[in-house]
């Protein structure tokens, strides 16, 4: 139960950050929080349902790896954006639309 509360809390914070902050880097951080919360949920639910720890472990591990890779790609994109056009806030990203 505690795990579920924790998970919701972390997820809520992440979502809040994604939706309210205007810096791209902060949004990325928010997304990472959401991913982490989902991972917590996975582990919590697994223990709640008494699942086979092996599979859960490999799934959680896979999620972590994916999250890490995603963070790397995301940071690379942000860096590239900042270098090329000195932009770092979402409101500066309004060129492509329609």
């Amino acid at each position, binding site marked *: 139960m505690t795990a579920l509360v924790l998970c919701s809390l972390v997820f809520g914070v992440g979502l809040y950050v994604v939706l309210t902050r205007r810096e791209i880097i902060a949004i990325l951080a928010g997304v990472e929080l959401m991913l982490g919360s989902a991972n917590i949920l996975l582990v919590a639910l697994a223990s709640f349902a008494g699942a086979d720890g092996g599979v859960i472990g490999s799934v959680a591990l896979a999620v972590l790896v994916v999250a890490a890779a995603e963070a790397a790609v995301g940071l690379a*994109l942000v860096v590239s954006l900042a270098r090329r056009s000195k932009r770092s806030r979402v409101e500066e990203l309004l060129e492509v639309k329609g």
Partner: protein
Amino acid sequence: MTALAQLLESLRPMLSIGWLAAALAGAGALAGLVADMFDSRKTGIALVALGMAAATVVSLAAALLPLETQISGISSTFAVVLTGAGFAGLASVVYFTAFLSCASGLGTVRENIRVPVAALIAVGAVAGQVLLGADDVLVLFVALELMALIAYALVAAAGTNRSDEAAIRYFVQGSVVTGLAVLGLAVLIGLGGGVSGYGELTAAIGLLAPGAALLGVVLLVSVLAFKVGAFPFHSWVPDAYENAPAGAAAFLSSGAKAAAIGGFTVLFARLLTVDPFLPVAAAVRIMAVASILFGNLAALRQTSVGRMLGYSGIAQVGYALIGLAISPRDTLLFASTYAVAAATAFVALEYFRLAEPGWDGSVAGLAGYGKTHRIAALSLTISLLSLTGMPLMAGFWGKFFVFYAAGSSGLLWLSVVGLIGSVISFGYYGRVIRSLYFDAASAAIVDQDEQGSSASLPNVWPSALGASVIVLTGIAPLLWGLQLVYALFSL
């Protein structure tokens, strides 16, 4: 260790038929990167392309060999043949689009990263094959994520302000969706007792609370809807297709999407066969209608060809979603025909980008290319006609079988929606053709053409190859029977 064994076991269907293809693709990519280290970029790309070509041939062979036993005619109901081998046909299409994409030369990508981008496409193709063969939600997740990461990179590879912006936005949206995916995995695997294979999950889901099971499934459906770019998860599509380098978009819009559709289809066919999930199928149908209407209508007023193809891609996914919960086989067939046409279209655009540096990417800017670049223009025209679903083109068969499947399931109205969507679609595809052939080139372009005529022209044969495949596979079934449609595109 058991977990790893399980993982490997879940990969088995893919390995059993496709390991050779994947290995060839990977080897090509590696060889290309090695060549790139010695600064021989052309060789590098050629090596990657060669790997793709080999993978295409191998998986096509794998698809064609058991041909005799698995065909069924149109008059019987369309049986579902969903063994691992059933996806070799679509896998070969994925490799083929990746091949076209690399063979186009990727001239719009910055020169120093051209070979790595080609290698990324190759890896993406392998990821696509894995996606198709996945028999396990975790495999599905990993393959999807791999594909997504590659996609972000491909969009950004154009190295322009706009492509950065498109990539970032795609990435942010994709990350949220990854969150959804993990939530879905958590619900299904966690509550389901730690099993991740489709078969076991299906059994385990029966034990779950229906609400929780639905939540998990809808989360996964949302994720896949995002990956294929269905309404309302579509917003990244036009941005990405327009701003990615056209050569890379050729793979992004075709092979990557077809693989995602394939994964989606398998998920439905394996996981969502039980009664409580019927509402999901209905919801997917609603999504299909919304995608068809939104994509087709929004594409009508686009001025950029790439962006127009993006919106049209949303509509095309709508057609695929029609078949999704009805006839997996016809959905895969549609995905194949769509992928070949989309790849051909973008490869032709890549050609125009390079051959006409002054072209601004707009529909109007294509004026007169029908005369100056006959082969590329013809290829683009054929691919667009195929996307419209005109007979004599592969695209006709894709749409026909999906609509037929819908009709046979008592959903003729869904076919009618799709058909009307096809009519609307000629409103924008036709505009491109009109520009190519019916409009005179503006003076500026003519001038540039004269200047540029001495420079060596980019590859036009990939688009011609794609167009030939479209026409040949469009006509052959008329001569040798309709079962050939399946033989050519899926099994």
